[in-house]
């Protein structure tokens, strides 16, 4: 098997597994940059996956090939609405942000499984018929070698995710909105003094995080799992959070880390087709992303990079 053959297996699969993580990690970037810890990303992905699958199943016959894309929008809205709960609890009610996130995760999975039972009368949904299939990028896929590796038999949402990551970078670092967002997460009192509405900024950030995590969950459900059940989203939200921290809370850094985790995850699935990797016990590949995250946190990443006000509710007038 030549290197190019191997890359033709690994690259599309890496992009596939990384896409949900990229979206969700970008969502996390909004929330955490504004100073709100969002462990609830996992639950928000669950909401996205659930609403996308339900929408997909019921609209596939009328919308045809456009179904999964419209379902992304539906999941985005659903995720945004659900995130309001986290925003109310942490910003207005001053709840412990980590605990509220844990509650969000439990609530999302409980609620979605309850609704699945209610709608379909069983523990998991049927398989969807219209999923994100493989796709050849026009023109670019005709480039020799590079086209074969990166643009043939790939998944369209992956390119959307990369585009969104660049967009988020521009928003966060090149616009007044981004400056305000980051200032609220670093020093909310100073931001307040400058006339920035801390509460409003944080609400917006948390809702955006829910929207992007919803899209992440929807991509996962419609490209990888194809149905919704209790184990559909099983840790991807936490992985995305790890990618965010790995990437030092920077949108492009988070994307890079998500691509790396995508590679690690995809290896445990396609690895058996690739020489050398096939000999590695599967469990090593399965735990690799988690072990690497711990090592990276302990060794490589300076701790000073987290937004300074992360995890602390802003109480007006309190020094």
């Amino acid at each position, binding site marked *: 098997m030549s290197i190019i053959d191997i890359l033709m297996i690994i690259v599309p699969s890496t992009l596939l597994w990384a896409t949900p993580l990229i979206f969700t990690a970008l969502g996390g970037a909004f929330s955490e940059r504004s100073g709100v810890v969002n*462990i609830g990303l996992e639950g928000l992905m669950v909401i996205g996956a659930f609403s996308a699958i339900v929408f997909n199943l019921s609209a596939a016959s009328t919308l045809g090939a456009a179904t999964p894309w419209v379902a992304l929008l539906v999941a985005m809205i659903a995720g945004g609405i659900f995130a309001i*709960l986290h925003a*109310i*609890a942490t910003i207005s*009610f*001053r*709840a*412990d942000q*980590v*605990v*509220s996130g*844990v*509650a*969000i*995760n*439990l*609530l999302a*999975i*409980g*609620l979605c*499984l*309850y609704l699945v*039972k*209610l709608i379909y009368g069983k523990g998991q949904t049927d398989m969807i018929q219209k999923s994100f299939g493989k796709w050849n990028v026009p023109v670019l896929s005709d480039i020799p070698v590079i086209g074969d590796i990166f643009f043939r038999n790939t998944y369209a949402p992956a390119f959307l995710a990369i585009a969104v990551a660049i967009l988020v970078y521009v928003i966060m670092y090149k616009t007044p909105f981004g400056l305000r967002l980051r200032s609220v997460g670093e020093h909310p009192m100073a931001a307040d003094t400058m006339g920035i509405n801390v509460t409003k900024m944080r609400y917006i950030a948390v809702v955006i995080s829910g929207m992007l995590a919803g899209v992440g969950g929807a991509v996962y459900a419609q490209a990888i799992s194809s149905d919704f059940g*209790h*184990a559909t989203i*099983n*840790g991807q939200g*936490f992985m995305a*959070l*790890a990618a965010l*921290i790995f990437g030092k809370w920077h949108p492009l850094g988070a994307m890079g880390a998500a691509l790396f985790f995508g590679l690690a995850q995809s290896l445990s699935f396609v690895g058996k087709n690739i020489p050398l990797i096939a000999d590695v*016990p*599967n*469990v090593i590949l*399965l*735990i690799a992303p*988690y*072990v690497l*995250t*711990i090592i990276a*946190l*302990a*060794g490589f990443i300076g*701790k000073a990079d987290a937004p300074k006000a992360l995890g602390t509710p802003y109480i007006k007038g309190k020094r």
Partner: protein
Amino acid sequence: MSNRLKSILTPLIAVLLGMVVGAIIMLISGYNPIAGFSSLFAGVFGDVYSFGESIRQMTPYVLAGLAVAFAFRTGLFNIGVEGQLIVGWLAAVWVGVAIDAPKIIHLPLAVIAAGLAGALWGFIPGILKAKFRVHEVIVTIMMNYIALHVANAIIRTVLSEKSDKTDKIAESASLASPFLAQLTDYSRLHWGFVISIICVVVMWFILEKTTLGYELRSVGFNQHASQYAGMNVNRNIVLSMVISGAFAGLAGAMEGLGTFQYANIKAGFTGVGFDGIAVALLGGNTAIGVVLAAFLFGALKVGALNMPLQSGVPNELVEIIIALIIFFVAASYVIRLFLDRLSRKED
């Protein structure tokens, strides 16, 4: 209103609010909330079998709750109870299957193995926090996944021939009790609840009656002040995670040696560790509070199984209620605000 009364009322109001929202959800989805809740209630107290099962379910909750509460009291957030529970479960079953010994040695050995495995799983985030200031929340979450995959791999390759569960543990390592089972109409109630009660006393004793406990709590209140007072903050962080992990590992022993008597491949988490967070929060992170909260959650979980049969309500409703209770406890600032207003009016 005294502070003490407020700190008792807050969790009660949270539970009540959780139930109310649960009732609203039942109403919206076309079920009768009264029928729903009475089938839940009947599923707990309806007969001795259900009651025995509730106590059995409560046992790992008590230990998982103690684990979270112990870490909380010392200023740490242990989300890794789930992973520590899984390795504890595995270690207990491993000893239970692989060793041949009289019960007086075998059972304690299996229980201790579970505690040690959990302690090891808590030691890693503890030492990383102490040495490198890595946040324990992220590390313990990662450790959960590592535990899940490693345990699955060991069960598949070492403890069985590519099967999805291990052999049954030896009789000499079992916590099961024919006496208790007979007493409760053949429920799976086992001697584990004695261990959990001992642990409740141990936690209370360590925290409230020993110098170590004083130091641990002091570090929880203010690290810098504790450091200045000459306490070894780093050592206390590690120790706290180790003790917390040991409690969680014992929770795994309850499942492995008591309820199931084997270890199986898991597609996802058991949820007991995450519910432990809820148990600890609801119990105000005190030993006795944890017991009460664990009973509530054990009863809810077991009672829920009766809901689809008797009233048609999907049992996932209870998961929603539990999540809402955590939510309301987390946001208890508002409940306290409300109670403050209330008591001000009384004056």
